[in-house]
């Protein structure tokens, strides 16, 4: 599998570290339901069979976290962007 890193170009997936589903976002730790929200954030996953936004870290390359849209049935990658900012750089 090759991941088209927006900075480095397409690289073998072994240059990257995988975190998983990009959908969960860190809840507000001061909210009254924080315990339940964190449980969901840390542990519960949609685990879709199909396209999924996921976080990969280009650990052996530019050290950027990427949001990769990938189909878990075919491994086909349809979109890649820097995670977090959505923009091209710092």
């Amino acid at each position, binding site marked *: *599998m090759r991941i088209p890193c927006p900075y480095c170009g*397409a690289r*073998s997936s072994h240059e990257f570290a995988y975190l998983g589903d990009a959908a969960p976002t*860190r809840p507000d730790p001061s909210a009254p339901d*924080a*315990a339940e929200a964190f449980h969901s954030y840390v542990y519960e996953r949609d685990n879709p069979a199909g396209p999924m936004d996921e976080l990969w*870290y280009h*650990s052996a390359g530019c050290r950027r*976290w990427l949001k990769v849209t990938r189909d878990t049935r075919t491994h086909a990658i349809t979109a890649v962007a820097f995670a977090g*900012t959505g923009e091209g750089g710092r």
Partner: protein
Amino acid sequence: MTRLVDGGLIDRSRTLSFAFDGKSFTGHPGDTLASALLANGVRLMGRSFKYHRPRGVVTAGSEEPNALVELRTGARREPNTRATTVELYDGLEAASQNRWPSLDVDVLSVNRLVSPFLGAGFYYKTFMWPAAFWEKLYEPVIRRAAGLGRAPDAPDPDTYEKATAFCDVLVIGSGAAGLAAAQAAGRSGARVILAEEDFRLGGRLLSERAVIDGGSALDFVARAEAELSSLPNVRLMPRTTVFGAYDGSEYGAVERVGDHLPAPLPFQPRQRLWRIVAKRCVLAAGAFDRPIVFPGNDRPGVMSALALATYATRYGAGAGANAAVFSTNDHAVAAALDAAEAGLKLDAIIDVRPALPDALAARAKALGVRVITEGEVVATSGKCLTSITVRTPRGSETLTVEALGVSGGATPNLNLTCHLGGKPVWREDIAAFVPGAVPPGMAVAGAAAGTFALADCLAEGTRLGASAASDAGFAASPAPAPQAEGSPTGFKPFFHVQGKGSAFVDQQNDVTAKDVALAHREGFRAVELLKRYTTLGMATDQGKTSNMAGLALMAELTGKGIPATGTTVFRPPYTPVALGVLAGHHRGIDFKPARPTPTHEWALAQGAVFVETGLWMRAAYFPKPGEKDWLESVNREVKATREAVGVIDVSTFGKIDLQGPDVGVLLDRVYINMFSTLAVGKARYGVMLREDGLVMDDGTTARLADDHYVMTTTTANAAKVYQHLEFCLQVLWPELDVCLASVSEQWAQIAVSGPRSREVLGKIVDGLDVSNAGLPFMGVAQGSVMGGVEARIFRLSFSGELGYEIAVPARHGAALMQALMAAGAPFGITPYGVEALGVMRIEKGHVSGSELNGQTCARDLGLAKMASTKKDYIGRVMAGRPAFADPDRPTLVGFKPVDRAARLRAGAHFLKVGAAATTQNDEGYMTSTAFSPTLGHFIGLGLLKRGPERMGEKVRAYDPVRGGDMEVEVCSPAFIDPQGEKQRV
């Protein structure tokens, strides 16, 4: 000898000697082991897996199921090597396998006498009585009888490499379609790789008498090869098997660099793994000759008709003194006639069809070959084939032949098209599976796609080669395809001759038509169940010669037809791949990088004993002459440090440079304690959690300037923590203005510890005030040492003694160590290793990797009081879950053996004294132990249920795996200087 008089692509001017089962033979360059054996009249080449039946070669390619040999000897022995793919070299040694005492007389061939018992699934129904006999008696016997060849006796002496290649168009296979595709793509300027499994380009063209562009097929191959070689954008890769298609248009291939030689050339590998990244791929892998299942079809001498022809035409080898062909299709008949023209004595063609096309009939007549139409071979005889029985509507007759070529038609070689989940589809018009969904970027040309006529293969190859190049962005000029005369492609679907006697579907695994029927009878009808129940298709040919027939037989039995019965899915590898080549350079000492510290060579010169710490090599201890064991050395090192001064290289810690206005905010969020309030010039110990509330790492972080901090991590977690910080900055809080840089490699860091450490340090600093006032505990100084070497000095202590960590640019690490040694000589400065470091931290009750094992929370480790309640931090919320506050949770305490002479061992579990040794009574375990030279007995740290409430209690340390079972006393984890006074002096 059955070497034909002339012809073949062998160099008859040179003779090669080789040995098979200790007997000497000769062959020629261009031969394979199989062709040379046949040319020497050797037909018996192996024994089958289960019944140990005599077997001969059945193919001329990598799909060979029978002619498996142990090639070479000793450490280079290669079991299960297909004689059909071994290029002959001078001095080659091969031996048959899976037989005893000899290939000719194999005692285990008695298995076939009990074959009425040994049907498919036989094992599952038996060997159960009595229960104990399976493992003691039956299984060992089965294991010894099973298996094929023997593994080598010693580590592989050869080397391997792994390489990556990129191309616009990868062409797999160099037959007519592949060559045409490579030419079309190559002429466009696209980067082309042409991979060919064989040692010669040409594929079937090397074995057939076709006319292309008015000349011979061989001339066409030569011209194409010459042209492709001349193109700088084309890479020809013979002896290269593409074994797998992977995601992202990556293909795995093995180049056999030195397998055709007695040993690889100096400085060259035996094989090279290629990862080929191809924008487009044209698969032109040809087709397999389809066997027909008939009684006696496994006798040596019976083989594929195309193989029979190949041996005659390409290798000038007769498969027997005379031969017949049993066919269902024009292609096989034509190939057989080619063989006859090449000099093979072909007595008869037995075809299942009512008539042959006129042209073929006329050729047969001209060559004096008898044609028996509507014929089926129903029996064979001889240990190696001596005769066959042919049945026609007109009666039966027996023909005396030594070789029988069999062809049931063509099965497209679509293996690679399935590797990404594509399923083949059935084409009724050619009675074959052809590629269905193919991997992205792949196109299939020629026989692999079910296109069989030569002219069509050339045209399709040209077309797909050009379109692959144009898809990759190159303008392919529309050159005409090479032209060939039409070749007849008539056939009749025919899989199975009804008759008495064992008819083999999978020759290597001895699966017969009867076994398929039995599987059907017992309900194992799904193709995958059939395969697993009978082992059909699980031999080393991966079903290439057996799956299709097995499927056809099952379809006959279910009456559902072949497409509804299904197909098996092909997975990588296409052909078996040596494990050595998949590992490449990474074996032995080069399995993983060995990282030396900046003082490694110095430590080596001091006689240090090293230990692997992750990838690092660290000094474990520094033995001195006369010391009887490591413990004596370590005790000396600890004592010297506690009483005077010691030094250790701690460069392996992760070091991260953090700059920017928001560093303090970031650190407050990743550590449980506060860092934004840390004064410039100060360091603080911090603990960070994972978001699930468990401890991730610890270390000290210092503030060098208002917006500049440097963090240390544990050696093990350096990369993980850096990644975590980047996650925080890029994903969680992208608004924070913090810049990270790893400085782990930049700085050498040496800890100098002990009551005399200040005096030692004082001698090497360039005018820095290192007094207790000038550089207090947890203070940080920046300046220089050794007359101008930039340095950072941290007053930290892992040992509990007065201590400093001095960081200098890495190139000065060894010099710093030497300077410290010189400066400390008057005080008896002693280098110590990670063993002594471990002893001292256990004496102090500091946690380390054994406690920070990912299963402990801050409270378990007695660190909960560090947690700030004034802020949020990663892991805070989840650390509030009920289980984390359970007072019964094992918590860190210290332990002493009640018998002070006893040795404690980490890994012992704690039980209440008198309690039964059960999981329910398990109260925790010992995490770390050491002999404390300071106290004169062993000490330990451990996690004990309600530990801190149980000071002074005696508990049982249960260690049955090392024969240990003793009472230990619970105590504070801080064995020495619990108030931490020594480090503050």
